[in-house]
């Protein structure tokens, strides 16, 4: 169908159309017109011209926001199991068996490997790691409840008050989470337990798999040499940083859309929303949200709630 000879809509309308289509599909029941308007009305400067330019630039950013809803998360969970966990093991088994194609032999060996594997929900029962486990099990038939444990179930204290491995038969722990931003949170949450495990059994395979991660965050964690491997289904390279020169969002030029200007706007409001981290934790500058939460590495203008700011994507903050 040839549609290229239409008179082009003004950019504001093109962006609104895009956002409206998200509201009717992937953002359904999440963002409605009131929420959108309230959010856009956050950007109110003293002069009308600037106000409009701010709104247009922020609307542009919103139109680029990646929101992973329930369906998308489930697909990623399938990929995580298949591509990060199962496939490498199968490849190794086949190699060990002389590149065999005999399914029965492969399955037999894989069952043995699977038997000594535990998928670990990172953090407490109400944290994202644990929340992911239910759909993780639903989407991957091979996994049953017995294959999953909480982080708090890895180690136990013996009568003498010393830590020991709670399930000595386990050879492989797969730590599962939704997201790695700078990597600092993962490190804080896991370092102690992982080091204890390594001290107790240096032959353990300790993997940390997430749905989405920044390239920098992965590098940071890999540098620690804590884990056998740290991987993500979807890796966000530097182009996902909203305002960097190589930003993927500003590849095409649009009249009135300005990367530097938008950065200043995001910083101006971000300062009041997330002190010293105005472009998101660790200066990640992300445009990313999950069905269950929005990472603090995402621009605070999307999720901040300080000083009467109206968020558009909710961020649930863990209570101490």
């Amino acid at each position, binding site marked *: 169908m040839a549609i290229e000879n*239409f008179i082009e809509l003004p950019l504001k309308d093109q962006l609104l159309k895009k956002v409206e289509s998200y509201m009717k599909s992937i953002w359904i029941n999440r963002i409605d017109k009131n929420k959108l308007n309230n959010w856009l009305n956050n950007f109110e400067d003293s002069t009308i011209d600037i106000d409009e330019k701010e709104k247009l630039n922020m609307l542009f950013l919103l139109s680029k926001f990646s929101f992973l809803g329930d369906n998308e998360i489930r697909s990623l969970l399938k990929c995580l199991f298949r591509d990060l966990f199962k496939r490498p093991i199968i490849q190794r088994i086949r190699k060990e068996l002389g590149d065999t194609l005999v399914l029965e032999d492969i399955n037999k060996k894989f069952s043995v490997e699977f038997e000594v594997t535990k998928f670990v929900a990172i953090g407490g029962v109400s944290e994202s790691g644990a929340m992911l486990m239910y759909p993780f099990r639903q989407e991957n038939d091979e996994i049953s409840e017995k294959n999953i444990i909480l982080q708090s179930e890895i180690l136990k204290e013996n009568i003498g008050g010393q830590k020991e491995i709670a399930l000595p038969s386990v050879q492989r722990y797969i730590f599962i989470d939704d997201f790695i931003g700078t990597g600092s949170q993962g490190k804080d949450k896991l370092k102690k337990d992982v080091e204890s495990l390594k001290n107790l059994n240096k032959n353990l395979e300790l993997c940390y798999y997430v749905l989405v991660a920044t390239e920098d965050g992965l590098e940071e964690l890999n540098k620690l040499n804590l884990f056998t491997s740290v991987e993500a289904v979807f890796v966000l390279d530097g182009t996902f940083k909203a305002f960097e020169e190589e930003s993927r969002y500003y590849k095409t030029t649009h009249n009135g859309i300005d990367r530097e200007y938008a950065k200043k706007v995001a910083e101006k409001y971000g300062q009041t929303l997330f002190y010293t981290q105005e472009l998101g934790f660790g200066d990640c500058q992300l445009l990313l949200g999950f069905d269950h939460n929005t990472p603090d590495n995402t621009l605070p203008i999307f999720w901040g709630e300080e000083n009467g700011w109206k968020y558009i994507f909710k961020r649930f903050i863990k209570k101490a």
Partner: protein
Amino acid sequence: MKNLENPFSVLKATEFTNEEIKEYWVDFGHGKNSVFNFLNPTTDLPKYLLGSKGTGKTHILKYASYPLQKLKANNDFNKILEEKYIGLYYELYGYNASRFKGKGIDQDQWNTVFEYYLDLFLADKLLKTYSEFFDFFKVNDDLLQSVLKGINNLFNQTESPLECKSIKELIDYISLLRKKIDSEINNVAFTRKFNLSEIKSLFTPGDLIFGIPELISQQVIQLKDVKIIYILDEIEKLEEWQKVYINTLVWDKRKPVTFWLGMRTWGYTTWTTKSTELIRDGHEFNKIDLDSFISNNQELYPEFVSNLCVNRLTKYFSKRGISIEAKNIKKDFEDKFEQYSEESVVEYFSNLGKRKELAHITKLKEKLKYVIKPEKAINSFVAKLIDDEENVLFQKYKFFKFYKDWYNLDSDNKRLKRQWTLENIMFAINDEFRKYKTGSNSIVFEEIVDKRKKDFIAQICVENNEPARNIEHSGIDSFIERSQCNPRNFLMILMKCVEIGNLRNEKTLEPEGKVSLETQYRALYDTAEWFYKTIEIKGEEAKKLYDSLQFLSDILKLYRYCDKPTETSVFGFSITHEDLSNEAKRQIGDMETYSIIVKDIKGRKERNTSREENRYFLNKTLCPLWGLPIKKRGILDLNRETANLIFNYTLKNQFESSYKKIRSKLVAPFLKEELTNSSQNTLDF
């Protein structure tokens, strides 16, 4: 009843419940203008109700059907019978007619199965409906048994006589027969053969659907002379041979039965019956074309759609406990729409021109590079032409005259030597324009202003990337005009106004709400896009149609947005049919059938030869996509070559070079060399 957030969001009668069909019903007019005046249910002649999508066919047909008859009569069956008919509505979409073909089965067998199944499909609802009447009138058992005996006898009795003792038993039996056929159809892809014992016809086609009403009309006194109207909707979903069978039923119908068939205009494709006799409009049936009916009664259309709008708003407010008089609802709603003003647009751009160079000036400077050297002389040349005129529209008038005179220069001279001539032109234009501004007689500029004003305002908006400012006509009346006699188009524009207005925080339906010009523009654009994308044509024919539409809109857009328009506000064209190839004629016919173009009933004679010309206009709903006007002023005479290139797909590869040729005469610097410059994107202005 749904509590709609947007009162215009339901656009199809199929999305309404029966209660809503009744609640949202608005007749086209009163008395002789009522839809039911020409669709008269008391006459025997079958009706073929044709219309493009959104003309309201389904709403009309459902409104005439039995569930609505019951609702309107508050379940008083005596009252229903005062209407002297029972309307049995069948939506053929649910019938899944496409399954009656292929799967390794001979077509003759499919024909028989389809006919048999259709009779059972119709008889099922017929019996269920009659059964409700029998219950209401407490028909005594003797009479009922007599009726049943008659019906049983309609079935072939040779092998095992049918002995249904109640209507329910009969309905169950028919349902069982249908299920058996369903099962056979579902499995025949594997078996490649019908099981005859399961699918064998137990009556002659037509015997049940005509025989049962005939029998009941004779035996049940309350139903004597009560017509049964089989209302079959969405006939266009049927295969050609299936339509032939329906035509055959229409031909064979027996009292008290008649048919109403609803279909898209493009779905009306055959008049043949199984006996190869042709059914004829006015003899075997009456064709009612809703599009023509509305176009021929255009004076009634605005009131009709206004009533639709008020009806929706009344329901919307009453569901929120707000009671407002209909006339106030209309006025309040109309007042919300911001009014378009040409003066405001001109003022806006004139002010903008003080802060930055507007596109028409930049464009002229670029074009002058071809004829003025050194380049630095261009700025002062253009400044002299503008002559301190700040009004952007006045600048455009002068530029137009300049482009026109530039084109008229003797093209044999080398362009670079022509500077003196262009200067003379520029000074002459300034002298002439001063006369116009001071009120002295300037026929040249008075004519330009009269003919070009609207086109130039459109150009200013589009050139400066603010097309939304050129809405040209705003408010409900303009939406009515833009809807091109199609109620769904009109409701869609209103639905979009509310939806987009709410997104823009305009609180459209609240007391202080408004509908800005920006919102109106978006609503019109989105409606146009929806219309464009939902043209109901598929496959190769779709490609041909969309290609022609693109070529046509390219040409119309060129004439509106070029430097030197030769026509005024064009969105239509005239052609002489004798000049067209058969393929081009077919394509124009298709575009008319699918309401892409609309034929002007007033043709005209060609200037030189006095040959009859046909005039067509682009559907006004589509015009915003290309920034085209909606008021008829000028018309583009398409010559034989251009018309065939646009509408004959076999010539499509030649369109671009022809387009460039036309463009080179309308767009400065009027270079013939452009014809060979393939690297230039000539579709830009």
